[in-house]
């Protein structure tokens, strides 16, 4: 049997054996220890965890008579079982990767030996890895953090959408079960859910369109206003108008909530001073929506202003001079030169901002908290976006599975717009990232 096949087969049987056959003793030992450790964990618990992921527990907590006393006996906790199961699954994947690499390594070294090449010592192998696979070494720590703190929790949350983990069914008292697409069906067909879902989805899309358009147009207009040749102290105006962007938006939104207070807020007071009746800013469904849009404009316009400012400075002056020679007025110049240039450069951001606005949690949560409450809605108010509804469902109402369904729907919405816009950007065309 040729050396490479022999080494590969030996490594496939027991990791590390092929390396030893190749006379790489230290490497073989390291691989062997890893393989043994895996075998130990596999037999002590990992299989149990994997089964737990499928069953989500068999015994709920229950009262058991022990002699004369009735005692609470702890049963399976579906949620912990799910997380442990996911970790076990991750470990399984990692091991499979290691196992395949181990076979490949044995095969490659075996082949090199057959060609009478010098075999690298353990130290040389490590050094070679540092040179050849520097990127992986550098990425190891960030990726580990991402896998455990972002990907694992997200997978868990997505899986929740396919269980019945929602208010009356809460572990450890009850066991959670897989229900497939049941929650999605309920969301669309059950009246209490579908009314709320339809209403909130409509408002979310309206909000995203209005919020994007108002801040975009506002920002471009402000930038053009400052950029006019007749305006002096450009830097001063820019700094003054950038202030809303600089104040942490958590603070400014809490402040604005007080400013628009119907009874005590200064906005209504000033309206009263000039003889107008105050408006029910935060308590009337319609005006509450207007208020959050106004607040969002205040926060969002500076961002577009900065971007538009960047574009405006790059438009060559002679374009305008040529237009003036042809007798164009300023409105005409704006429409024919400025607007197309700005639009061209900022169009990709426009779609990204739209996608971002679907998720703008702070503006709604801090200004109105989704209120005024809508009696026809399930745990939601008139200004609630999908994302604030998700939050309320999960953290106030313990409707975890429905919250996850909403999360998946938001993801689908945002993903559609982002991928669509991303395919238009330069870096995609250069790199061809999504295939």
């Amino acid at each position, binding site marked *: 049997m040729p050396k490479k096949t022999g080494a590969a087969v030996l490594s496939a049987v027991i990791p590390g054996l092929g390396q030893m056959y190749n006379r790489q003793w230290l490497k073989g030992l390291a691989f062997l220890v890893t393989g043994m450790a895996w075998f130990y964990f596999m037999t002590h618990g990992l299989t149990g965890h994997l089964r737990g992921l499928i069953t989500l527990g068999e015994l709920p907590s229950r009262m058991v008579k022990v002699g004369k006393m009735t005692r609470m006996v702890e049963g399976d906790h579906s949620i912990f079982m799910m997380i442990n199961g996911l970790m076990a699954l991750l470990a399984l994947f990692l091991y499979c990767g290691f196992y395949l690499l181990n076979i490949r390594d044995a095969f490659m070294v075996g082949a090199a030996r057959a060609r009478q090449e010098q075999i690298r010592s353990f130290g040389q192998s490590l050094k070679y890895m540092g040179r050849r696979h520097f990127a992986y070494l550098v990425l190891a720590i960030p990726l580990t953090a991402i896998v455990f703190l972002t990907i694992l929790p997200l997978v868990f949350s997505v899986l929740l959408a396919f269980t019945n983990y929602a208010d009356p069914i809460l572990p450890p008292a009850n066991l959670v079960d897989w229900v497939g697409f049941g929650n999605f069906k309920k969301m669309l067909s059950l009246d209490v859910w579908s009314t709320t879902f339809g209403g909130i989805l409509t408002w979310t899309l309206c909000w995203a369109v209005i919020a994007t358009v108002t801040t975009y147009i506002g920002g471009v207009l402000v930038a053009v206003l400052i950029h006019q040749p007749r305006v002096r102290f450009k830097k001063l105006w820019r700094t003054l108008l950038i202030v809303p962007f600089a104040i942490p938006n958590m*603070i400014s939104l809490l*402040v604005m909530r007080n400013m628009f207070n119907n009874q005590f807020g200064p906005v209504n007071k000033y309206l009263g001073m000039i003889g107008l009746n105050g408006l029910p800013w935060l308590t009337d469904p319609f005006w509450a929506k207007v208020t959050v849009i106004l607040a969002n404009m205040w926060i969002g316009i500076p961002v577009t202003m900065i971007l538009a400012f960047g574009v405006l400075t790059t438009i060559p002056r002679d374009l305008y001079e040529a237009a003036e020679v042809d007798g164009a007025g300023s409105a005409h110049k704006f429409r024919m030169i400025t607007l197309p240039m700005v639009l061209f450069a900022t169009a990709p951001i426009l779609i990204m901002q739209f996608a971002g606005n679907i998720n703008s949690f702070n503006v709604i949560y801090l200004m109105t908290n989704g209120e005024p409450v809508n009696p026809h809605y399930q745990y939601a108010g008139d200004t609630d976006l999908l994302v604030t509804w*998700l939050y309320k469902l999960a953290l106030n109402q313990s409707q975890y599975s429905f919250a996850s369904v909403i999360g998946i729907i938001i993801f689908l919405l945002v993903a559609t717009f982002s991928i669509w816009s991303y395919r238009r950007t330069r870096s995609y065309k250069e790199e061809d990232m999504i295939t």
Partner: protein
Amino acid sequence: MNRKPEEAAKTIGSYALLILLSCISLFPAFWIVMSSFKTGNSLFSDTLIPRRMTLVHYQELFEQTKYLQWFLNTLKVAALSTLIGTSLLLLASYAISRYRFAGRKSMLTAFLVLQMFPGFMAMIAIYVLLNTLGLLNSHWALVLVYSSGSIITNVFVAKGFFDTIPKSLEDAARIDGASHMKVFLSIMMPLSKPMLTYASLMIFNGCFVDFIFADLILRTEEKRTLAVGLFRMVNQSNSTEFTLFAAGAVLVALPVTLLFIFLQRFLIDGLTAGAMKG
């Protein structure tokens, strides 16, 4: 020249509009600062500039609440997260920008996809995870989550930045025999200062203002951060302690706002870079 009066009118109009817009943009800040100096504790006042100024609310803030403690907590969490988050971000984006390795494209796609999930969808899971690790009510939990989260949110801006640094610089160093690590530390690091400033400011600011996640993790009053403390202050006592909140808000917003205005240039560069390069 019959267009002169018209031109003058336009100039005056532009300035009037700019002054009006500046007033609107500054008003909430001005109002909250004035409220913090006001006597009494209510939202209502009949004049914008209070007749009698007082510093008593600032004093109350330090004597009656754990404001100083919150401030130190926030600084600790923000500083650690910024440090760890920026270094991880730098490593990750450098590797992705400069090296071509198997799985690179799928990794970038994965980052893109991860960004699209609503941020706190994973919160329940992180909560359970931290609970099993015994990390609830600890600042380290926040630091861990913030710094790993910051990689994903900033990696595209950072990668875009590294993409603009010419490759010939490294090649020259390599010919002189510099190792990968050496190239990274002595060439790429110094060059990435603008990006570093942008990213660390973003992470720092994120830690300063996040109240949802911090509220979930931090269980006791001594452990709270500023944002959580302030949010609770205004949420629990419905506008009865308004002036106290105002004083707290001014103290939080002031350093961050000044930092932003001071570092405007980097921010603008970062914003435009992030936007143009997707």
